C-alpha cells in the first residue's frame, strides 16, 4: 500500500512540474515532417536545427519522414501527427495537391502549422502561419547575376532530378539572371554519368563558359568534367559539402549558394513557440533562409560546419 502511495505522490508531483513548465512556456511538443527519403545529407542539418531550437526553449521535437518518398504516405504522417494533438506541426511542402488536405485538416483542428523548405507559393492558402525557406528562382537569379558579373556569357545548368520543380526553378532563375535561353541537361544522380554528360555537353558547344550545378555532388563531378575537357569554365554550385568547400578554396568553383537549411529547421520551432506563448506573436512576413553566398572569403569558416550546422 505504501508503495502505491509513493507512486501516486510521484505522479502528482510530476504532473505539477509538467503543468508549471507548460505555464512557463516549456513542455511544448512539436512534430516536424519532411519529404526526405533518408538518402540526402541535406536533411540531417534541418533536423539538427529543429532539435537545437527545441532544446533551447525546453520543448520536444519529433522528426518523421517516409522512406518511400510517397506523398500519400507523407500526408498520412501529417494526419497521424495532427491526431496526436501537438503544439504545432512543421512540414515541408513539395506537393500541395497531395499534402494540402491533411494540412488544412490540421489547421481546422486548431493546430498551428509552419511550412518550410518547399511550398512557398501554396503555404498561405493552406492555412499555414508562414513559410521558412529559400525562394529557389530568386536564388537562381542571384547565382546568374553574379556569374554574369564574373564574366559568364553562355551558361549550362546541370540538373540531377529533372522532375524536381525546385531544381528547375534554380536553373530558370540562373538564366533569368545571366540572360539567354534555358540550357539545362538531366545529368542523373550517378557520379559517372554526371561527369560524362557534362563533358559531352561542353564538347558539343564550346561557347559555354559558365556552368551551374544545382546539387553539391553534381558540382564535385562537374569539376572533373571541366578539367577533362580542358575548358576555362566558371563553375557555380548550390548547397554545401566538404568537396565543394575544397573546390571553392582552391579556385575550381567560384561560389556556392547556401540555402542555410539549418534555419529551415530552427526558425519554425522558434516561430511556433512565440506564437503559442506570446498571444499569437508572428513575424510580419515569410522568412527567407537563403540565398547566402559561400565563396573564397568565407569558405574556410563555413567548411568547419558543413553537413552539421550549415
Amino acid at each position, binding site marked *: 500500500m505504501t508503495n502505491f502511495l509513493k507512486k501516486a505522490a510521484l505522479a502528482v508531483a510530476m504532473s505539477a512540474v509538467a503543468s508549471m513548465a507548460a505555464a512557463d512556456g516549456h513542455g511544448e511538443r512539436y512534430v516536424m515532417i519532411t519529404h526526405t527519403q533518408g538518402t540526402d545529407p541535406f536533411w*540531417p542539418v534541418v533536423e539538427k536545427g529543429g532539435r537545437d531550437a527545441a532544446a533551447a526553449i525546453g520543448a520536444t521535437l519529433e522528426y518523421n519522414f517516409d522512406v518511400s518518398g510517397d506523398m500519400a504516405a507523407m500526408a498520412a504522417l501529417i494526419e497521424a501527427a495532427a491526431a496526436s494533438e501537438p503544439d504545432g506541426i512543421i512540414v515541408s511542402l513539395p506537393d500541395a495537391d497531395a499534402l494540402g488536405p491533411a494540412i488544412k485538416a490540421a489547421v481546422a483542428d486548431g493546430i498551428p502549422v509552419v511550412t518550410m523548405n518547399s511550398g512557398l507559393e501554396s503555404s498561405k492558402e493552406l492555412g499555414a502561419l508562414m513559410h521558412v525557406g529559400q525562394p529557389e528562382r530568386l536564388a537562381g537569379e542571384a547565382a546568374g547575376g553574379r556569374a554574369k558579373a564574373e564574366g559568364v556569357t553562355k551558361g549550362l545548368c546541370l540538373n540531377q532530378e529533372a522532375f524536381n520543380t525546385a531544381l528547375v526553378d534554380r536553373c530558370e532563375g540562373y538564366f533569368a539572371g545571366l540572360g539567354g535561353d534555358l540550357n539545362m541537361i538531366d545529368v542523373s544522380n550517378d557520379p559517372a554519368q554526371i561527369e560524362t554528360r557534362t563533358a559531352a555537353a561542353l*564538347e558539343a558547344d564550346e561557347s559555354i563558359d559558365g556552368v551551374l550545378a544545382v546539387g553539391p555532388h553534381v558540382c564535385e563531378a562537374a569539376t572533373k568534367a571541366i578539367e577533362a575537357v580542358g575548358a576555362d569554365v566558371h563553375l557555380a554550385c548550390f548547397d554545401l559539402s566538404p568537396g565543394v568547400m575544397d573546390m571553392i578554396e582552391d579556385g575550381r568553383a567560384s561560389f556556392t549558394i547556401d540555402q542555410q537549411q539549418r534555419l529551415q529547421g530552427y526558425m519554425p520551432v522558434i516561430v511556433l513557440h512565440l506564437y503559442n506563448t506570446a498571444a499569437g506573436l508572428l513575424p510580419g512576413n515569410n522568412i527567407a533562409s537563403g540565398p547566402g553566398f559561400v565563396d573564397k572569403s568565407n569558405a574556410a569558416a563555413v567548411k568547419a560546419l558543413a553537413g552539421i550546422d550549415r
Partner: protein
Amino acid sequence: MSDRSEADRLQQETWLQRTIRRPEMGAFIVMIVIIVALTWASSGKAFNALGLKNNIQIIAQYGIIAIGAAALMIAGEFDLSIGSMIGFAGMSMALMLKWGLPFGLGEATPLAAFLATLVMTLTFGWIIGNIVVRSGLSSFIVTLAFLFFLRGVTEVAFRLINQSTQVSGLEDFKEDSWVAWIFGGEVFGWFYDAWFWIGQRFVDMGYGRTDQWFTLGGNLNRRGEQWVDGFDARFFWFILLAAVAMFIMNRTQLGNWIYATGDNKEAARANGVPVNRVKIGLFMFTAFCATLFAACQVFENNTSDAAKGNLMELFAIAIAVVGGTLMTGGFGSILGVVFGAITVGLVANAVFFIPEIDGAWFRVFLGAILLAAVFANERIRKRITGGI
C-alpha cells in the same frame, strides 16, 4: 507448322548463314546502327579522345552488372536486388574506410574493406539463392523483397554509424594502394599516349584543333595539353569479366549446366545437372558483379551515399534483353550482352554530344531500342529454333 525437313539438317551452311543465326546478331545490328547514327549526329565528337573514354566508362559500368544479370536470366531467374546491393556494398566499403573494420578489428585498408564487403554481399547472394531454390518462390518476388531490405539496411547503417546518409571526402587511396588503383584508377594509358603522340605530329604538320581530322583523331585538349591519360578502370574489369564469362558459358561444363537449367530445369536435373547449386552460384555471381561496380564507384569518387545504384537493376535487365537474352531463360550469349551494353551505354551518354536535341530524349531512344532489339532477337531466336 515449320517448313523445315530432315534434309535441311544435313545441308552445309555458309559462313554468312551461320553468322546471321547467332543469338547476338540482333544486338550487333542495333549497336552498329547506333554507332553510325551518333557519329554522324555529333559530327564525330561522341568518339573523339574524351568521348571514347567517357562512353566506355558508362558502357563498362552497365556491362559489369549486365553480365551478372544475363547469366542469371539464362538460367531462368531474375535479380532485382542488384541496385540495392550496389548501394549496400558502397556503403559498407565507405564506412569501413572512414570508421575502420567492424568489431574493433582496426583500420581498414582498401583490400580489407573490399574483401569484408565481398564476404557480406556473397552471403546475401547465397541467402537469396537458397530462398529461391528451397521455397520454390519466384525470384522476382524474393529479390524484390531484398531490393527493399538491402536499401533499408544501407540507410539505417549510414544513419547509425555515420549520422548522415552520405560519406564524402574520403582520402584518395589510389595514391598509395594498388587495390584502390585497380578499381578507381586509369588503365591502358599507352593507347592514349600513342594517340597524343600522333596528334602532336599532326600539329607539327600545321593542322589545328578545328580541322576535321582532329574531331576524331587528336588527343589534345583546348589548351594543347594531353587530353586523356587512360580509360576508366571499369573498362579493364568489364573486359576481364566478359572474357571469363564468355569462356565459361561457351567452353565449359558449367556453361552447359547454366543453359540446361534455364531451358528445362526438370530435364536438366534428370540429366545430373546440380540445378540448385548452379542457381545459388549465379545469385552469388550477381552479388559479386554489384560489389565490383560499387568498388569502382567508391575508389574513383572517394564517396558513397545511400541512394547509389538506384534503378541499376532495370538497366542490367534491359541490357541483357537488348543483348538477346530470353526472359524465360535458356537462351542468350555474353557477347550479345557486350553489344547490348555498348548500345545502351551510348544512348545514355552520347546523345549529350548533340547540341540540337534535349538530352532527356535518351530515355525515349532507350525505350525504342529496347523494343526494336526484342523484336529483332525474337526473329533470330525463331530462325535458330526452327520457328518454335
